[in-house]
């Protein structure tokens, strides 16, 4: 039972926000000592596994390509595409953004969009403008809510798109870990299984955005149809 000490170390270490690399090493140490291994054996076991799983870190060879494209305006181009999203309502706008985020993340372009790059300068202001066109001027509580929806949509689009790209940290982490248990899989075998969840995420979040639209529209409809053309 003492080997569970390693789990306690990693959970507490992450909770207390120590440097994660240190936490992982400390957890390995605690686990190994509890299992009755000596220090040299633990360091050797970790070193052996680290060497065997080197391919997990080869994902970073894509950085020169991403860097080249970003220097030539990839992010600016992504911004132009987002700025051109047609969506008369906040729900449709955010659903369109989510789709764009999922597709680009699935192609490995996780950093073309994001909170500082696109949500704050583009998506949140566009969503606010669309919501006001639907429901008239918004009280502060609701404008805060629309901003929250914008950031949430970015996170969900990223999380449930990126694993479809096979050369991403999480996929290679799984491949590396499975190999430590003697199971060999190809990254593609793992990444295809991210697709059903990606579709489900789009449907669930899209449904919630549609309901947001209905709520905003319902409030506007009975009072004044005058700003119909504002959308």
């Amino acid at each position, binding site marked *: 039972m003492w080997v569970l000490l390693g789990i306690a170390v990693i959970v507490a270490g992450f909770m207390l926000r120590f440097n994660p690399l240190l936490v992982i090493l400390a957890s390995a140490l605690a686990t190994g000592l509890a299992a009755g291994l000596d220090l040299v054996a633990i360091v050797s076991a*970790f070193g052996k596994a680290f060497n065997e799983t*080197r391919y997990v*870190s080869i994902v*970073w*060879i894509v950085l020169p390509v991403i860097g080249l494209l970003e220097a030539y305006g990839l992010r600016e181009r992504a911004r132009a595409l987002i700025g051109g999203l047609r969506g008369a309502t906040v729900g449709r706008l955010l659903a369109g953004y989510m789709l764009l985020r999922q597709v680009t993340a*699935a192609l490995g372009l996780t950093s073309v969009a994001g909170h500082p790059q696109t949500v704050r300068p583009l998506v949140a202001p566009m969503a606010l403008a669309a919501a006001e066109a639907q429901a008239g001027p918004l009280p502060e509580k609701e404008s805060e809510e629309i901003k929250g929806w914008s950031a949430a949509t970015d996170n969900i689009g990223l999380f449930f798109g990126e694993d479809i790209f096979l050369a991403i940290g999480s996929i290679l982490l799984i491949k590396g870990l499975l190999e430590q248990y003697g199971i060999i899989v190809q990254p593609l075998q793992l990444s295809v299984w991210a697709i*059903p969840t990606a579709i489900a995420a789009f449907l669930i979040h899209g449904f919630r955005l549609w309901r947001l639209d209905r709520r905003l529209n319902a409030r506007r409809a009975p009072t004044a149809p005058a700003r119909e053309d504002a959308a």
Partner: protein
Amino acid sequence: MITLQWVYILAGAAFAAFALLGLADASNPRRLRNALFWGLMAASMWAGDRLGDFGNGLLVIALVAIGGLGLGRGTVGEVAPEVRAERAARHRNALFLIALVIPATALIGTFLFKHLPALVDAKQVTLISLALGVLLALAAGHALLRAPPGLPLQQGRRLMDQVGWAAVLPQMLASLGAVFAMAGVGEAVGAIIRLGIPEGSLLGAVIAYGLGMALFTIVMGNAFAAFPVMFAAIGMPLLIAGYHGDAAIVSAIGMLAGFCGTLMTPMAANFNLVPAALLELKDDYGVIRRQIGTALPLLAINILFIYWFAF
């Protein structure tokens, strides 16, 4: 025959270039640490098989020590926003097309090279295709954008320094899994968890696995870190060894169940708290509140997907 070794040589060259370019970046006050860190990664890629197990362990300790002290960031290589905007207007969607070369090559190569076992190591076709895709994308970028030859490496170095020590986190966690396996962590946790799962209930085990993945992620703030723990505790001993579940499905969708946890925790500050601050929300949890309504049903669906697809 092209093997994974070739990819390691390429990756080692990239890390060595990052180290040397970092050393020359006078705007980074911690350039020596950055150079050492990426230099050690290059050494691991190039010479890992000759260092021995203990030597590799010492290399890891050195990486952790430097990473724990903290790396720095310089300003060399930054391109002015006006220049980028002008280039973006000129190249438009060609930029996406060049980016598409990498996943397209990885995908086509994975299927094609399987039939050419004399040319490419059949067990590593995807990773070899990925490396080939990177080289093809660089060639396409060079031809279409006419960038100076050194630019991709300098820009890659800039992005690498932005990622910092977190770059080795997945590899470290995969290695931790090996120590967990050796020490029998799975058996120990499994014995406890099995007290709470009805004997012989596959659905109960799948629910415990999916919920556990999300809960550990909520507590730790990191699905990557929760994964080796839950995999050792339930995924491997119960779902894969016990019920003969498909290992690829159990682990791939298990990770996504963890991502549902990431959406619900303030511990994942980068995704949930930083954006709230960036958008100047009064409520720190304003982003999390909008995410829970998607995360919970999606977690339930992930659990069902594992139950349906893996068994």
